């Protein structure tokens, strides 16, 4: 947990219109890497499910790397900060 950082797992355009189902698939996808659905729920920060598909989750570098290699994952990128102008 100490080595984990929020990553954005981007899956692109939504594959269907059911947001609940989409969130379930996000949890399933994360569970395949972290080992369980319970842990996946704990690590999940956001499920992006209306405008596009993806999620933000607390991941270690190696978990992020493994996720990025899964089919359907467009990119996995660390969270970053923006500033007011």
């Amino acid at each position: 947990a100490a080595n984990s950082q929020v990553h954005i797992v981007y899956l692109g355009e939504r594959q269907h219109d059911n947001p609940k189902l989409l969130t379930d698939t996000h949890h399933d996808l994360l569970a395949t890497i972290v080992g369980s659905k319970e842990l996946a729920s704990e690590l999940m920060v956001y499920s992006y499910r209306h405008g596009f598909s993806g999620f933000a989750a607390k991941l270690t570098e190696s978990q992020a790397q493994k996720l990025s290699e899964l089919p359907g994952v467009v990119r996995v990128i660390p969270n970053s900060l923006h500033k007011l102008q």
Partner: protein
Amino acid sequence: TTRSWDFLGLSSQSPSNILHKSSMGDGVIIGVLDTGIWPESESFNEKGLGPVPSHWKGVCESGDRFNATIDCNRKIIGARWFIDGLLAEYGKPLNRSTEFLSPRDAHGHGTHTSSTAAGSFVTNVSYKGLGHGTIKGGAPNARLAIYKVCWKVLGGQCSSADILKAFDEAIHDGVDVLSLSIGFSIPLFSEVDEHDGIATGSFHAVARGITVVCAAANDGPSAETVQNTAPWIITVAASTMDRSFPTSITLGNNKTFLGLAMFTGPEIGFASLIYPESKGLDPTAAGVCQSLSLSKTMVAGKVVLCFTTVSRRTAITSASAAVKEAGGVGLIVAKNPSDVLYPCNEDFPCIEVDYEIGTRILFYIRSTRSPLVKLRPPKTFIGKPLSAKVAYFSSRGPNSITPAILKPDIAAPGVNILAATSPLDALGEGGYVMHSGTSMSTPHVAGIVALLKAMHPNWSPAAIKSALVTTAWRNGPSGLPIFAEGSPQKLANPFDFGGGIMNPNGAADPGLVYDIGKAGYMQYLCARGYNNSAISRLVGQNTKCPIKKPSILDMNLPSITIPSLKNPITIKRSVTNVGAPESIYRATIEPPIGTIVSVNPNALVFNSTVRKLDFTITISAIHRMNTGYYFGSLSWADGVHVVRIPLSVRTEFLQPYDANDD
């Protein structure tokens, strides 16, 4: 905004402008991703507003000192907050004595931008007695959906995970326009990289017809500092307007100079004037504003003159603190001229002058045994002979990711903008404040986009951008070209202000638009070299890029930028007629220096069945040499409309990289 809308031709007294033709944006929802909102501000009263637009599907959420039932109304129809991404990085809980875990704005920035985009009319507002008038949003009848994604942590930070979530929800909620006064840092990430949550989120928003308006950032006047450069975004630079706050400085020899300042007064009658000059090899070192070291015996009861080359405000802040602490009664700062003003702490009289005036004051001090000065508080001056300029701080092009995509797109007032703020804003006075930044120019454009959406609900985000760019002002009311602040000032070019300063009434009736649909953006992604599977996922449909990579130059944008012209090049564009169906447009070319530009065909004939026509532009270099950018334009005119796009061309016969990569 007590002057900015009049400056832009949207006086509420005039019955003929688009403010009235668009019902002031009634029915349009502007989503603002910012620091939240202070709902009690008079700017957000719901007087005269009808029911919430039927396409709204969002929510208003309660939290710290924010009661959804009381604090949302027919003006603020939605309010939410997103902080989980930031907190996970920040590593400690939010300090709830300085920030609210709710949409309530502890910072003030979000209240300022929201009131500029869609605030209601509030009369009799001023700041330190300056800029008196009525504040209002660009679309006073539009509704606000507030997405608090930026927090009063480390000066105001927003995480990309939170921004993306706000985009996700805003798309669901049914917003029509999104306004983001947020930037990143140079070097930039690519547009399809979620490091830049704004580019990715805005891609999906634009694909659903939501116009996304973003700040160009405040890293000017250096070149290649513009941010939020994705071609689907409207990127906004900042300009000044025809308002200034001059203050008179009268010397003991009765000579009077004008400086700029923001303090309430009273007048400082003739007081001793000093310039801290040191002995030794560097006599000017002691008079540098940011390193003033003053003793009470030297300064008490006196006005101090100092010089600085630092453009940021820190020099003035530290100088005024030093002079005040030493018992001084006023400060004159000689610096690179800029129109951005802020009051000094505790209303201490500090006046900014340029080096020329500063030097003349210094010569007076050096030539007089007992130099004296009288400082008067500033007055508000509006209209002629003031002319707008691109602001010093406004980030400049070229676009460092894709130089062939012109950025910024447009400029709007963003200097000394008076609008509502949070009562917790340290600079605020009675709930109002003047702020400067591309943050302030962005909601000016978002408000106008709301008016355009109300008038033309079927226009795509690209059509709206085109209408803004092709009708923008390159000249002031006198007909003379607009300048850009910098060192030295120069005539503004498309890298300073895109098409120019926004002309709202012109944008409502542009004649022709350069439209782009999903296919156009796919063509861009192919041209940028993204692979088929990434593009397919991004756009949600199977996409196969053509074997011959498309040219970014052919993207149907309302601008042409050629970063590396060697051999003659032919570029494609198409225009859609949104004016009278039977129209004939003829081309006028203002070629960039050292180029030959031709258009084929040079007349476009539209009728009730022909709404969209293609044409090509061929550009070739006259001289075989490397140059910087030269600028020109291509205009289509039908006697009523002039549809102008900027041309920017750099010839490179010795190229630093393979130009075919573009």
